[in-house]
């Protein structure tokens, strides 16, 4: 249905919605015409601007993504024709031969009857019968998350190209200056062009490792948003929300992939607690003290169903196991009901297959809740020699909690003080300082 003569507010909302849900789709389809990321971005931005101008009079199209794609690709073709010689000098993205830039062929593809009118999508819904479009998004995903790019560049490019965030927004999410973020993104795009990082879904043999790299980028994005390493706020909701969007998109693009389901489940089950993690004053609330009525039951239900699916597919991957741990927490009505032995068992599984110092730390904390603070402290102290955990504030903070539980106040004080020195996030620092206060003198 076409909403004829919508209000300005309805148009703005529709454009914002299309920006959130269709950006990657529109950009990926446009890159296919331009074989140039910058030009494609320019044309897609232009298409969104035109949507704001024209949807008010022409109506909101039934398929906004298709409308925007048509407009962006048309703009790209105009620009390509206008200065074909200037653009020929630029290195183009390497893509499959079938997708090589052929402006004329692409023009044929677009010259369907739906484009007969002066304004595309004016009153007739635009049809883009293009079976390869879904794959275009995957091409964009694999290009953004290519292992030849630095991890921080992969995250920045994903936010910019897959989520459509502006450079200023990406910079804000990572608390760096806009100039620094612009330089980072430009450097990555230059490398894509100069080193010829292909705009392509990798061959079957490389796919498992490459999909894992993509999921890791989205997980890193979520972790950064969920427990911001520095800054005034505990969480950066924009990052957490965008990573949830991306995880949903990957789940659609990689149907039947256990780890894509596992990652989406992990994000949902962790993010479900967002509303309870800080109190009204913005102070950190530990899992033990959270008001579980404020957890999001819809996210928990969706996540639990996904965990079941991910675990049901042969040997579970690491995200599925991490999601299972989150599910055990989420399904406990009260903190005291938490099935800690099961959590320890799941961490044991993680340690066997994907050992890491942080997993070891989380396992030690779980041991403390399953078997008592003395056991937990012993497990933590066994990790103290690990060089990767030297300078990791959560280790000191966890030791402090168990020492406090054991009534070893002096040692607890030292451990809290150490954690404070190692923690950059203002909300976490506030929590540690309050704990230190409660110990008395």
């Amino acid at each position, binding site marked *: 249905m076409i909403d004829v003569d919508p209000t300005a507010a309805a148009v703005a909302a529709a454009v914002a919605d299309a920006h959130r849900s269709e950006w990657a789709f529109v950009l990926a389809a446009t890159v296919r015409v331009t074989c140039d990321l910058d030009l494609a971005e320019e044309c897609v931005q232009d298409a969104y601007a035109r949507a704001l101008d024209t949807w008010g009079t022409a109506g909101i199209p039934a398929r906004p993504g298709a409308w925007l794609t048509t407009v962006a690709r048309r703009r790209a073709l105009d620009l390509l024709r206008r200065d074909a010689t200037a653009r020929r000098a630029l290195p183009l993205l390497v893509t499959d031969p079938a997708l090589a830039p052929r402006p004329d062929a692409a023009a044929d593809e677009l010259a369907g009857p739906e484009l007969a009118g002066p304004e595309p999508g004016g009153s007739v819904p635009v049809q883009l019968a293009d079976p390869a479009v879904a794959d275009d998004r995957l091409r964009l995903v694999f290009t953004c998350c290519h292992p030849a790019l630095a991890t921080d560049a992969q995250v920045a490019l994903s936010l910019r190209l897959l989520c459509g965030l502006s450079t200023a927004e990406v910079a804000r999410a990572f608390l760096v200056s806009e100039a620094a973020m612009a330089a980072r993104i430009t450097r990555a795009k230059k490398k894509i062009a100069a*080193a010829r*990082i292909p705009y*392509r879904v990798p061959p079957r043999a490389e796919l498992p490792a490459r999909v894992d790299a993509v999921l890791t980028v989205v997980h890193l994005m979520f972790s950064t948003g969920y427990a911001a390493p520095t800054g005034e706020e505990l969480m950066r909701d924009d990052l957490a929300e965008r990573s949830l969007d991306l995880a949903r998109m990957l789940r659609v693009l990689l149907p039947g992939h256990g780890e894509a389901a596992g990652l989406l489940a992990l994000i949902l089950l962790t993010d479900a607690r967002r509303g309870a993690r800080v109190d009204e004053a913005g102070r950190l609330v530990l899992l033990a003290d959270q008001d579980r009525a404020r957890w999001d039951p819809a996210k928990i239900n969706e996540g639990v169903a996904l965990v079941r699916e991910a675990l049901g597919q042969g040997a579970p991957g690491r995200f599925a196991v991490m999601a299972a741990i989150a599910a055990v927490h989420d399904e406990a009505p009260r903190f005291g009901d938490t099935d800690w032995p099961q959590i320890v068992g799941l961490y044991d599984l993680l340690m066997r297959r994907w050992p890491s110092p942080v997993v070891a730390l989380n396992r030690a904390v779980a041991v403390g809740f399953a078997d008592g603070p003395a056991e937990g402290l012993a497990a933590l102290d066994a990790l103290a020699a690990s060089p990767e955990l030297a300078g990791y504030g959560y280790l000191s903070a966890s030791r402090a909690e168990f020492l406090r539980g054991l009534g070893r106040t002096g040692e607890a004080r030292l451990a809290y003080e150490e954690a404070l020195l190692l923690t950059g996030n203002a909300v976490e620092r506030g929590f540690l300082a309050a704990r230190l206060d409660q110990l008395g003198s």
Partner: protein
Amino acid sequence: MSQYLILIYADEAQWANATPGETAQLTKEHAEFGQRHADVIRGGNALQPSPTATSVRPDAGGSFAVTDGPFAETKEALGGYYLVEAADLDQALAIAREVPMRFGGVEVRPIWEVM
């Protein structure tokens, strides 16, 4: 098609301590690599160890400073290279993964193409 330079970096101390058997094995592996990728290899050589290197830099007086040793001292030194032809970075990396590199690793650099 584009060209990439695959720079082979290796720990020279390990290389110096290699047994004749290990040296022969590595030579054989390079010969096999060369045969397997003969259609894309455009050049390649092993280099003498870095102590044989001489560096040249312009100095403040408008002349040149000639110094003994490689341009930058690193634990793993440039020990050889291949110049290969590949459609894109993924293909170049697939070739690079097959370069014998037991004492170090390789760096893949796109050649700057002059149009």
